[in-house]
């Protein structure tokens, strides 16, 4: 047993080394730069709070992230709930369809959305053709477009998380509720929903944290007009070479995400999501 543990530990070594070299070291470097560039001290952080442009970016990021999280979690819950109620065959097909987006590059997905949503795109074309609208709608290169793209990106993750949680729930509990006289709506509100809270909390946390630092989709579907933190940081580094701003903002983002995750993990609902349920 001890031997096995030692071997197991040894096996994690290469991966750990890679992670430390490619991940932890650069992060520490960013941290260091944020308090040394251009001169040592916390001045960069003071500037951050005084910077109006950063303020706007933060507000946009929060707006998009919150909207994305709410829409993704609600939509994914509906899909996951439907999937667990399907027959085995249909469920396999549905889960496969949920997985398909994972094989398509995020770039391809973003460009596909542009094709669909732009002023002379597929959707506007169809709506104008059928006479529903007379002038094209602004569906992309704004908050709406970014949110649509992000929701689409996040949903498979959220669906799988919620599906795992929902399929863990003992279905006899629902039968018990029925035998006690509860109708479907009552069973949903009084039983399914409360028992889904751990999964919902986990999915919400995951999607929100992921959204905060999202780069590709907002960059392409926002086209620089709807600017989120990650893209803003990348512009500071690659275009304007403002390392002070980029590194301090990155550190702040990391800190905020850390605090959110830490606080969330202390909530009973999320704790429950990580505790292995006893098998019946």
């Amino acid at each position, binding site marked *: 047993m001890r031997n096995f543990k030692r071997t197991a530990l040894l096996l994690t070594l290469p991966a750990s080394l890679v992670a430390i070299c490619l991940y932890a070291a650069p992060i520490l470097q960013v941290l260091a730069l944020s308090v040394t560039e251009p001169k040592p001290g916390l001045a960069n952080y003071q500037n951050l709070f005084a910077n109006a442009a950063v303020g706007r970016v933060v507000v946009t990021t929060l707006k998009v992230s919150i909207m994305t999280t709410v829409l993704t979690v609600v939509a994914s819950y509906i899909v996951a709930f439907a999937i667990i109620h399907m027959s085995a065959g249909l469920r396999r097909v549905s889960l496969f369809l949920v997985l398909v987006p994972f094989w398509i590059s995020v770039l391809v997905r973003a460009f596909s959305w542009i094709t669909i949503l732009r002023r002379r795109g597929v959707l506007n074309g169809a709506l104008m053709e059928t006479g529903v609208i007379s002038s094209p709608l602004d569906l992309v290169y704004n908050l709406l477009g970014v949110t649509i793209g992000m929701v689409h990106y996040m949903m498979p993750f959220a669906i799988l998380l919620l599906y795992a949680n929902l399929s863990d729930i003992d279905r*006899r509990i629902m039968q*018990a509720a029925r*035998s006690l006289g509860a109708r479907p709506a009552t069973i949903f509100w009084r039983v399914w929903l409360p028992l889904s809270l751990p999964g919902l909390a986990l999915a919400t946390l995951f999607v929100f944290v992921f959204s905060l630092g999202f780069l590709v989709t907002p960059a392409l579907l926002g086209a620089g007009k709807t600017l989120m933190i990650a893209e803003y940081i990348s512009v500071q580094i690659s275009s304007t070479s403002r390392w002070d701003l980029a590194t301090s903002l990155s550190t702040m983002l990391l800190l905020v995400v850390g605090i959110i995750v830490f606080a969330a993990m202390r909530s009973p609902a999320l704790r429950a999501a990580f505790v292995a349920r006893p098998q019946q």
Partner: protein
Amino acid sequence: MTLLAIEDLAKTYDKVTALTGINLSVEAGEFVTLLGPSGSGKTTLLMSLAGFTTPSKGTIRLDGKDITHLDPEDRDFGFVFQGYALFPHLSVANNIAFSLKVRKWEKARIDARVAEMLSLVGLDNLAGRKPRELSGGQQQRVAIARALAFGPRILLLDEPLSALDRMLRETMQKELKRLHRETGVTFVYVTHDQEEAIAMSDRIAVFNHGRIVEIGPPRDLYKKPATHFVAGFLGENNFLSGHRADDDETMVEAFGTRFSAPLQPRERPGDVLTIWVRPEHIRLGPAPGDGIGFRATVVENSFVGAVERILLRTSTGEQMVATLRSEAHSEYKPGQVVECRIDPAAIGVLPSE
């Protein structure tokens, strides 16, 4: 008065026949047990009664009204599930109150009923606990209280005690009997434990391969089983082969002796028969007495507490078990030849299969 009538019920899954030709009627206030080996269809019948499984054929009537296709939530049957299936997010009190809230009872009435149910199952001081903070036996009581709270027409129980250890199981058997007596609710109880069935039921329906083999009070099924299956499933039994004597049609020859036995007229001389005799009905020792006498050799003698189990070999080479009260019997040693006696009334004869 017949409360529940099951008429010619059948259930088939794709290829599996889970139930066929089930006829059973349950009187109001009765304690009926569905007993049978694993896979014999007990749960399928219980789920059909509860409305969770739709029968392929047949009718279920409650008070003469056809309820075969009624939704489970409209049946007013209590159900106690094998794993209890308590609501993990609700306290004990709220688990019990669930059916009452669904029925929109007034708050004061719900509180009174919950308190009544809690004291009925002896959990007064645990009202605020969550199910995961209870022991198995306590969870079981909550499940029963929850199922009884709204005053069900019938309480259906699917192997409610199978997860408990032996001691607790015996306590809970008594507890269930008491609840049955005190509430007057009709119980339909599923188990594969024949001792449990015998100890608790007014009547037992014995299942095998999706059919009811026999129905009757435990005493009748134990003492006068009509089938080989029931004779072997209920209690311990010895099966020996015999045949009808050629020279006297009222006599049976078996295990090296001959005796008169209740024979069916359709059995002819020479017919092979199965004789059964319960271990507790075999008496050992030279003590004079009437009954069927024969000789056997002791093969093994094992002490199991209150009784002693003695494995015997008859002169025909068959083995049988005798159980004797442990007193001075330890003198039976392997290899010893003993005189045995059986009261003719305790012997059963079945046509051989």
